[in-house]
């Protein structure tokens, strides 16, 4: 009995050491450098040009009235949002929507359009993966088709989580985890364009042309803000990041 009790104390002490070790490890692994600190002065409203490559902002685009609950959610999720309608060279209309959040964690994660549109009552059909060429790299783009009654809305979007541009939700988590373990709290950006069109194939081509034109037109810093990379390994020794480290 005595022996058993001694062994129990030993095991219990071992368990306690393991548990305290887990607490210390969790503390050490917690990311503290906010990548968003690198772009805190970038304002989408000013950084995205009104006119470029034959596209111009539609001055008469009707201002969307968003219901107050929806607006409150958007404001808690995102630090910046930009919604514009552009008219193309042939009179085509493309709706651009950018949402930016400073920290990708738990409840503050970017909401993917697959989820958002369905929550609004749309039926969503996932389309193919595509890509937009930019400076020798291919930016992966996800295509969707949203339908509500007689309304058909082809959508193309990409998401940037910290350094990575990612096409799917699973990779959103993987990417966040990967960067988190390097000590970074990644920011997140959703770049979405859509058109009202009954001809999805033509609409996707139009959207990708718009995306490529826009990426070409913006300055390098804004481009990095839109498609990454933004991390210190690409902008070495940035003091703003050091300032947020513990």
């Amino acid at each position, binding site marked *: 009995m005595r022996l058993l*009790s001694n*062994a*129990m*104390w030993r*095991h*219990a*002490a071992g*368990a*306690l050491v*393991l*548990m*305290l*070790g*887990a*607490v210390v*490890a*969790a*503390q*050490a*692994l*917690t*990311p503290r450098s906010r990548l968003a600190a690198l772009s805190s002065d970038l304002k989408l409203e000013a950084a995205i040009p009104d006119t470029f490559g034959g596209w111009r902002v539609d001055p008469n685009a009707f201002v969307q009235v968003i219901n107050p609950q929806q607006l409150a959610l958007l404001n808690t999720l995102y630090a910046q949002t930009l919604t514009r309608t552009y008219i193309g060279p042939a009179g085509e209309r493309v709706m651009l929507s950018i949402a930016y959040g400073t920290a990708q*964690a*738990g*409840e503050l*994660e970017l909401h993917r359009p697959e*989820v958002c549109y*369905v*929550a*609004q*009552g*749309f*039926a969503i059909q996932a389309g193919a993966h595509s890509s937009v060429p930019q400076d020798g790299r291919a930016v992966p783009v996800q295509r969707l088709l949203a339908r*509500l*009654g007689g309304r058909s809305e082809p959508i193309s979007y990409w998401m940037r989580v910290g350094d990575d541009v990612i096409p799917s*939700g699973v990779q959103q*988590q993987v990417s*966040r*985890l990967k960067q*988190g*373990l390097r000590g970074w709290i990644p920011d997140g950006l959703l770049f979405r364009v859509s058109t009202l069109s009954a001809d999805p194939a033509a609409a996707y081509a139009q959207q990708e042309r718009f995306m490529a034109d826009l990426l070409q037109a913006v300055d390098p810093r804004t481009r990095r803000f839109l498609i990454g990379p933004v991390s210190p390994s690409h902008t070495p020794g940035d003091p703003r990041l050091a300032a947020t480290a513990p």
Partner: protein
Amino acid sequence: MAVTPEMFRDARVRALASPWLLPAAGLLAMYGPSFFDLLNGIWRTDEQGHGPIVLGISLWLLYRSWPQAMAVPGDRPRPLVAWPLLLLAAGFYALGRSQGILILEIGSLLWMLVGLLMLLRGPGALKTLWFPLFFMIFMIPLPGALVDALTQPMKLAVSYVAENILYRVGYPISRTGVILQIGQYQLLVADACAGLHTLFTLEALGLLYLNLVRHASVVRNVALAVLIVPISFCANVIRVMVLTLITFHFGDEAGQGFLHGFAGLVLFMAALLLITGADSLLRLGVRHKGAAT
């Protein structure tokens, strides 16, 4: 209160002066901050509001069955099973806590408790305490992506059924996706209405009910546990229909008032009635079968 020798016969009191003291301190260091964060965070929201209740009930159930678990005769520790479990739990915790993955962080508590029981007492104690440990699963917050994936089809189904019933009885109602249009009003069936979380809460309450009542019939227990899923669905349909009808007959304001005041109550009343109803039917069925054999 004077300390008497009798008090030490209670295993709960003896645990205070036993090796259990050490892991108890460890658990507090690990999960104290976790639960503090939860209580100040997502456990305050409607969707995860059942979390603290489940935690409280689990702890109470553990406390209640503790003496029994410590007194299982012939129980021997199994360190070779326990240590891998504890290491796994510690790893899950470190990863989950640091990277904000709640399913790992809070889920690791279960593995930790199972490991500790195997380390310090043995499989007999684990068997005695299986229900409170199993019950804790319901307090683990699910990842948002999973909740969304499961909630969307439920929302559509709830809207579809509510629309069809109201249409059959003659209301001017139509539906586009999850948006119901009745008269001049438009209602969006929100996440909360379709209620994956209400399903979880109801399932948890149902299991607790079964555990406390302790029916002898296994058939009846299992059947009722499974039936809670469709019951929760029906309760949600009833809630959406009641909300729709109130909005239609008494206006938007009344509907909103109902939504924030009584919708949850109606849901749980409906679910409770359905559960007791199903239980009574099952009892009849089981008794009838018992008499026949």
